[in-house]
């Protein structure tokens, strides 16, 4: 790594991600401090662990920045095999929690392979599309990319983890459009999807997914059941008002009316305790992060770099929009962590890896901006 490359290190991007991760640690502390045993040692506190994960993430980020990002493109086939391998492994070795096999225990830590696979697939797809720049206008290329995508998607669907499947589809869609696919071809793909949607509702969706959809429409039907969280999240955020109830003072979160509060519903804890002010700060940090990410994509020196950046930005954007959208009841309940903020080691580490790749791309930019 040459010193002059540091001129292009995107400080705003780094700062916004660091602030989001910092706010995340604080919120994890608030969301968990009323439910942990009083004599828990500090190093076992969820917030401490999250802090550790952020440090590890930063370390990985630095590590990732030392290679030229194009190295990743060269080993893309191997990364694809690795992605498939860990996703197969989790189906057989994974720990089942709430009826889903999504985690593998490795010693003291738990790894969520689908989080890793997300970043790997961004590289794989970027490599695939950038290598076929001239064939992008062929429908065949699109179909092959879909076959490539199908492997991880099917494996993740089997866990099951439907929301991550959606993340993959969103990443693919953004990348394929940026890579130059024709909109008519995508329209052609959308056609059977539209026809198949009602079928999919009954065949592809698991019962729990259908229940979530119907509870989005009428959450009060069984206030303690599926609709419960959506309802309580809405109440939590709404009751926060403009300035919030104060850090670690939220009645909804501290008295556990709000569930899974340190992961999927951490935005509700934020909204309740820090109010509109806190929510607006976090939303703005995401806006900065995403726009800076897009700038990286725009200045990337090659198609591969641009597509990787687009993939990373899409991944963050989609998860951010779905997570907050669910919290504020714009969208039906879907388990989606808030990038960088929600509790979860794999997610935060892989996000810093992805941001490291973004910095890598930025630092090796060609200096010409679209």
């Amino acid at each position, binding site marked *: 790594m040459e010193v002059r490359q540091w001129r292009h290190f995107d400080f705003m991007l780094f700062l916004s991600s660091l602030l989001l991760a910092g706010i995340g640690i604080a919120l994890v502390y608030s969301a968990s401090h009323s439910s942990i045993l009083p004599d828990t040692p500090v190093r076992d506190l969820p917030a401490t662990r999250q802090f550790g994960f952020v440090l590890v993430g930063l370390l990985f980020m630095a590590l990732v920045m030392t290679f030229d990002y194009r190295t990743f493109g060269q080993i893309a086939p191997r990364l694809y095999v690795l992605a498939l391998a860990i996703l197969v492994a989790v189906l057989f070795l994974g720990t089942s929690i709430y009826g889903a096999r999504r985690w593998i225990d490795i010693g003291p830590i738990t790894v969520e392979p689908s989080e890793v696979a997300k970043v790997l697939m961004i590289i794989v797809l970027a490599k695939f599309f950038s290598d076929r720049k001239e064939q992008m*206008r*062929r*429908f*065949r290329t699109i179909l092959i990319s879909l076959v490539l995508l199908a492997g991880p998607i099917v494996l993740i669907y089997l866990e099951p983890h439907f929301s991550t499947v959606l993340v993959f589809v969103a990443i693919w869609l*953004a990348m394929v*459009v*940026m890579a*130059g696919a024709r909109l008519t*071809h995508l329209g052609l793909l959308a056609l059977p999807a539209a026809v198949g949607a009602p079928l999919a509702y009954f065949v592809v969706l698991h019962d729990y997914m259908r229940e979530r959809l119907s509870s989005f429409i009428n959450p009060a039907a*069984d*206030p*303690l*059941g599926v609709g*419960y969280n959506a309802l*309580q999240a*809405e*109440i*939590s*955020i*709404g*009751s*926060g*008002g*403009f300035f919030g109830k104060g850090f670690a003072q939220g*009645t*909804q979160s501290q*008295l*556990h*009316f709000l*569930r899974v509060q340190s992961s999927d519903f951490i935005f509700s804890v934020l*909204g*309740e305790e820090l*109010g*509109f002010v806190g*929510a*607006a700060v976090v*939303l*703005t940090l*995401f*806006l900065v992060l*995403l*726009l800076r990410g*897009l700038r990286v*994509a*725009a200045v990337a020196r090659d198609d591969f770099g641009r597509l990787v950046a*687009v993939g990373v*930005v899409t991944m963050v*954007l989609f998860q*951010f*929009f779905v997570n*907050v*959208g669910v919290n*504020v*009841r*714009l969208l039906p309940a879907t388990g989606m962590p808030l990038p960088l903020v929600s509790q979860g080691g794999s997610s935060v580490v892989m996000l810093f890896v992805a941001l490291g790749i973004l910095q890598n791309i930025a630092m090796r930019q060609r200096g010409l901006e*679209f």
Partner: protein
Amino acid sequence: MFNRVPRWRVKKRRNIDEETLLRVKFIVFRVVVVAAFLSLLGQVWHLQVVEGTTYQKKAEYNRLRVSPLSAKRGIIYDRGGNILVRNVPSFTVAVVPADLSKEQQPQVAARLGKLLGMPADKVTALIDERRTQQFLFAPVPIQAEVPPEVAFTVRERLSELPGVTVLVEPMRYYPEGELMSHILGYVGRISAEEYDRLKDSGYDLNDELGKMGVEATYEKALRGKPGREQVEVNANGLKLQTIKAWDTTPGQNLVLSIDLDLQRKMMQYLKEGMEDSHFAAAAAMDPRTGEVLATVSIPSYDNNIFSGSVKQDKLAALLKDPWRPLFNYTISGTFPSGSIFKIVTGSAALQEGVAVPGTEIVSTGQISIANQYDPSIVYTFKDWAALGRLDFYKAIAQSSDVYFYYLAGGFRDFKGLGIERLARYAREFGLGGKTGIDLPGEVEGLVPDAIWKDRVKGEPWMTGDTYNMGIGQGDLLVTPIQMLNMVQAVANRGVIRKPQVVRQVVDAEGRAVQSLQDRGMRKIKVSPGNLDIVAEGMRQAVEWGTATLAKIPGVTVAGKTGTAEWGPIDPATGYRPYHGWFVGFAPFDNPEIAIVVFVEKGKGALVATPIAGKILDYYFHREQPVAKGQ
């Protein structure tokens, strides 16, 4: 086919196009990002700033529960201080639907059902019923009167039974059972209609309230003031801390005017004396105060079956009983009074100057009158015997019907009272209206007159109707409590009060908060002198006339018998069945007790009178008399 490049595309220069296209794509992407940001920010603004207050209330509603603290219900004593009702603890296992998720419900229902020994379906049905009613925070009672050991087991296992609570509620226990049930009544779970009416007076969905007897009449005093406590709960419904509490005020206690020993003897003698009659009633009152000393209605019931969970099988048996044990004949049963009504006819005649004590009439055993409209029809009105020449005293003592036909309707030159005046005096003595006794379910009876007959039967009032009424027959209907009120007015020479079974309302420390004596006192428009005359006639009735069976040693009793014909002639005996009546008071010179005895269809006064005698004898000659009167 997809590889073919369309013709319109060929014309474009792709290099320039691609750069522009990428630029456009980035612009679109930025727009998407900003749009996502703005839509989320807008929704957050809407929830937190526009609707913030609404959600703050919802969050408070989540966190804060107001749970009622029921006040200790008042105790009831008889006038001698005997406890007539006690509060005993009763365990109720209940479920708060708001704290039990639907997913967990089948499991919890199964576990709870096993512990309580009831089918899980039934548990589920009870909870689901409440879920449809939407009152999710009020506990649904699953089983009441759970044995203590089962209640403790459930309590120990609450951690695996989300939403389940064990409520400890006081339950009413009536040690005297059926002896006092018509007076005390019972409490029961609030009904849907009662809840609608009372929810603003601090009643809760699971509250109990007095349904009958003094439990109902004095509900407000007995209930006290329930407190409330506002508690902070977590999502499992566990109480974390009390935020605010409003203290309970224990219910006030009642001291009845009932004399438990007299009540017991009255029940016993009435039961023994009524022979094979199906129902009977008796009551005694202190004519100086209007306090009811005893009141019995047979058949009776054990009011403990309504405590806690209603014993449905026993209740069903009560409801099926054709002689209606839940019915208080003393205040709710209406019957012709028979000859005891002559007290009214006699008093009216004296007061109106129709008769004086010396007025002599000869009873030949009957009188006959022609129809007012068709003289060819002749009606005959019989006396019970040819009693010969009678003055006023003898007429009362021997209960001559002919004498009172004269006084009521007149005969030939003798000018009678006429129906209008007779009915007026009947009402003056409290007939045809409620006495106002402090027990629920009292009825008015009926004092017929010309207007009533015209309206109801469409027939004109005849002199014969006046005759019948003069001796307490015809359409006249009275309740035993009305007859008691009438006779006590003779005993105290003209004062009518609302009879009362409750003497005092006292607070928890025993201080009287409300004395109920002399409530609704009224003087009737018959002079004490005239009532002296009626009383003297009644004294003679017991001394040597129709009521000698009520005579007791050492105390002079005054009384009047009644034998009211009721229904068709019984083919087995050749007689019409008679309701038997006795009303009286003692001691004659300074009355301290008035009494009424009523026995359904039987041998009439021959049955009722000795029962009254025994009761009075007990009252005056018992071993350890409790404090009587003031």
